């Protein structure tokens, strides 16, 4: 494990009780550097959520090892791990356990060991930072606000590694953007982020590195460009490339002028490539 590495999987395998030999995660190895933003992608049942549970020590590998910092999670207590690895679950309702927003955030602060006299004030401050009414009952809030609360209370523990299981699932476009702004800000401030997601646009737009899972195995580990432009990996992991990446690959395959669009990965890239290539527009053609 290098000095900069904050997490490492060494040939880690795990099978759920009652399913011996059927590995949810099988001989997976990788390491994550401090401050990286990693997206884990793959189809339902590929092992992504199991991988996240191994990361935060909810489960321990049957064989191999998972290290957080330089410590083996098999020997770490749940509380010690929780201080370093924060986890945002897919469904905020399975995470929220207090009757008020401020109480939910205060719960994390008290576990972290903050002084009782400062907890309420700090919890209210965090609630307001996340645009939440501190005195609201979490269970009456819209889904998007419950998700923000779950993130706020996870982050209140000041973990150095943040695991996000489908952070935008069930959210509308605006709510997705808001929560991703928060996550990008945390990443910019130095938090290592691991996002498990079915949203390929989210993975491509935000992550520096993609881990692609299939049937419990890691089938690709690389930059978003290298993974989403690799047809064999997409096929093996049952993934779809983001729309513009897919489109640019198709245009590249046509050869000729289509190859001018080969590296476009956003709408702006596409438009720029068309302008730079001097492709005359239809209006001008009609005028001629």
């Amino acid at each position, binding site marked *: 494990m290098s000095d900069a590495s904050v997490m490492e999987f060494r040939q880690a395998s795990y099978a759920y009780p009652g399913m011996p030999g059927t590995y949810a995660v099988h001989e997976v190895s990788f390491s994550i550097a401090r401050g990286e933003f990693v997206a884990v992608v793959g189809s339902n049942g590929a092992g992504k959520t199991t991988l996240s549970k191994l990361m935060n020590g909810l489960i321990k590998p049957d064989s191999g090892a998972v290290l957080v910092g330089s410590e083996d999670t098999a020997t770490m207590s749940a509380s010690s791990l929780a201080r370093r690895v924060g986890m945002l679950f897919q469904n905020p309702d399975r995470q929220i356990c207090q009757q008020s927003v401020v109480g939910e955030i205060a719960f994390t602060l008290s576990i972290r060991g903050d002084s009782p006299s400062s907890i309420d004030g700090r919890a209210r401050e965090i609630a307001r930072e996340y645009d939440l009414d501190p005195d609201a009952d979490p269970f009456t809030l819209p889904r998007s606000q419950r998700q923000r609360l779950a993130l706020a209370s996870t982050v209140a523990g000041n973990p150095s590694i943040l695991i996000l299981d489908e952070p935008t699932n069930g959210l509308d476009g605006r709510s997705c953007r808001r929560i991703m702004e928060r996550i990008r800000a945390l990443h910019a401030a130095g938090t290592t982020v691991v996002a498990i997601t079915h949203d390929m646009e989210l993975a491509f737009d935000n992550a520096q590195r993609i881990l692609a899972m299939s049937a419990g195995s890691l089938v690709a580990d690389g930059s978003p460009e290298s993974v989403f432009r690799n047809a064999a990996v997409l096929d093996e992991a049952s993934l779809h490339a*983001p*729309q513009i990446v897919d489109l640019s690959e198709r245009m590249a395959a*046509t050869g000729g002028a*289509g190859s001018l669009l080969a590296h476009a990965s956003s709408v702006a890239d596409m*438009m720029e490539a068309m302008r730079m290539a001097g492709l005359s527009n*239809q209006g001008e053609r009609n005028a001629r």
Partner: protein
Amino acid sequence: MIAIDEVGFTYAGSPRPALSKVSLDIPTGDFLGVVGPSESGKTTLACTIDGVVPHCIDGDFYGSVKVDDMDTFEVGLTDISRVVGTVFQDIDAQMVSTVVEDEILFGLENFGFSPDEIERRLDDALAMLHIADLRMRDIASLSGGQKQRVALAAVLALRPRVLVLDEPTGALDPSASRRVFDILRDLNKQGITIVVIEQDIGLLAAFARHLAVMNEGRLVLQGTTRDVLCNADVLESIGVSLPRVVDLSLAMRSGGFGSNQLCVSVDEAEELLKEVIA
């Protein structure tokens, strides 16, 4: 098939209406996508079609909803459920059994079909959703995609003429999501009217014939999928993100590249780009 006329609904104890003066006609055989930000009234609208509002939820209801000329306010839920099948957002909340076969049998037995008819419909539903191999499986052991198909099979066994689905792909990966929509398209081709609430507007762009856009309890846009997606400013202003290929074709349109065609799929965008570089 479904006539929603000036419908409003305020949940008991809520200070503001969940629906305000919503009017929408959904013709027989339509494939309608309902989009909008969180808390915009999408789920409440769906609940007015299957009668859950106002029959099961307290609140102030006005206007009328007619399904197959049945006024859902006047008739009971049992009568409505013979026409309208619903798949809820939270699949686990919908399941009443622990084994796949029992889940599908539950509705059939409650509707009082003969044993032969029940057996026939059970087999058909399992085959239609390609889950015959899951027949005796414990539901708790299934993946999200498998559970989704079991829930659909249990509803389809009752052979509804209208299928209402509330975010059916929420827990599914892109391939499984597309398979669910492929199934919905097949059912739609067989004549079943589909009403689907969905956050993934890319899927709706590719599959839905019409879109209804909700915001703050009101219907703010309705029309063919292409016509609605042309209203990028309105959609963005209420927090609905457009598929990237729609963004691209709108950018090309404003930049004068290619024809004025709005692309709703990668296939269509590919054709448009080929025109431009030709």
